[in-house]
């Protein structure tokens, strides 16, 4: 499968994530869109790792080139999980105080 296809796919997902962040007001949804961005990145990483792996296999049958990419994905998932726990905690704390998850209400701090 040509790598460009994966790139286009992932960039599209990524951009959709960005657009989500920009268009939604619900903090949770915004956060979800961020997760979407991360997933797009993950997929792209895997695709690249396979690409490099394939290129390496031509010369060396036992090469493990590209494995770092997949491990990177693993770490991204780890971090994502951690972020989610913290993020949701913050959102909940916010909700406790304001009974709203609308980011447009976050305007006490400005100028």
């Amino acid at each position, binding site marked *: 499968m040509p*790598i460009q296809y994966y*790139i286009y796919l992932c960039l599209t997902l*990524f951009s959709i*994530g960005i657009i989500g*962040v920009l268009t939604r007001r619900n*903090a949770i949804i*915004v*956060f979800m869109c*961020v997760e979407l*961005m*991360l997933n*797009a*990145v993950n997929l*792209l*990483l895997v695709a*690249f*790792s396979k*690409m*490099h792996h394939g*290129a390496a296999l031509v010369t060396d049958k036992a090469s493990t*080139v*590209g494995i*770092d*990419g997949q491990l*990177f994905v693993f*770490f*991204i998932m780890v*971090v994502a999980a*951690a*972020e989610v726990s*913290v*993020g949701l905690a*913050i*959102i909940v*704390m*916010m909700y406790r*105080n*304001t009974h709203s998850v609308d*980011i447009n209400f*976050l305007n*006490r*701090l*400005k100028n």
Partner: protein
Amino acid sequence: MNAIIVSALLGVVMMFSGIISKNKSVHSVVAAAGLLVLLLANLLDSYGVFVLNIDTHDLFHFEQFGLYFNSIAIVATLVYVLLCGKTIENTGVNVAEYYALIFFVLCGVSILSSFNGLLMLFLGIEIMSIPLYILTGADKRNLKSNEASLKYFLMGSFTTGIMLMGITLIYGATGSFTLGLSQTLDSGGLTPKTSFLQIAGLLLLFVSMCFKVSAAPFHFWTPDVYDGAPGVFTSFMATIVKAAGFIAFIRLFENNTVILGPTWHLLLSFVIVATLLIGNITAVFQQSVKRMLAYSSIAQAGFMLFALYAANDLAKEGILLYAAAYSLATIGIFAVLIKMKDYTFDGFNGLAKTQPVLALTTAVCLLSLAGIPLTAGFFAKYYMLAAVVKAGGALWLVIVAVLFAAVSVYYYFRVIQAMYFKEGEAETVEITTGFKTGLLLLAALIILIGIFPTLVLNWFYF
């Protein structure tokens, strides 16, 4: 390596001390002691003594530069804890946890000072950021604090996404997570012209790093977060963390600037000017000193970016000095600020009469931030400018910078004027003599560095 391990462990230790003792001040003491240990460990590191000897598989690259920065960060944190310990204890119930988080941040800092490869960069930045989201929101009842932390978190995670995309694109182009374009050039497959993919990746990385060091136009979180967060933690964020960000920034790009070529400098000078402009100009008309300091920290970032622009030895020495000078001064000011009842400029009116010592030390710190000679801040700025001039060209940039430095004098001196020349009864919470002596020592240190910057820097050449 020592710093990373020890700071992680110390984080755990702090949690235990939280379980064992309910006496808050104990935690501060433990933290201070821990920091001393950490400092020791880090110093040992540079002499080749390791807590435990592991093969880092080239994921780290320990060099004097990074280790030395660690020591600066640790010392700064120590000063911070000694000066602001009391306030931390009054911020909330989870004092021990706060300290633990601070230690985790330090762990992230020490990762960022020696990472080799984008993986560790990513992890380091996350370890540094996640505790900060918490600390920002530490004042749970305070809506501003909540808001700040949520803003910080949302934008931070968004930037994480951007950064990861950048890393991915680089990986796609080079097939490795190691730094620098040098490998990519000689490893064939690529046309001698650096690949667009890679450039795109680097740009995204650049953007995300700009966000972390609050360089315009990615600075927007800074004023709100610094303003909203509890003063103590703002001080920590604005100093050590930010400096660490710069160290990471420089280590990330120092080898690449050559290949990135002229457009890179164009882009960077654009960012620098924008940062200086927004930071300085916006700071002028702030009413709250805290928010003014937030903007001034943006302005200072603009100056620190010069190190990136020049990317030569002078710049690396300079950024270390800048980190030290800037951190010390800012910590000093915040230490005083959080003792004030009123964070506005008028709140400082007549401080010189009610609290001469505080006024004096604040003045010294402000002078240092303004870059007046005989204070550490002067040589910090001096190194930055010198580095750029040495790198050649871009004299216009330097001139712009000094003009903005003059503007910065305006808002820094507003505080001095309030303290010394305006009539008023500045109200503070009770001040211990220990605190005063601490401040005096800090001021003395700032002036000492200001007269003999090489005292700090000669360390750098052993």
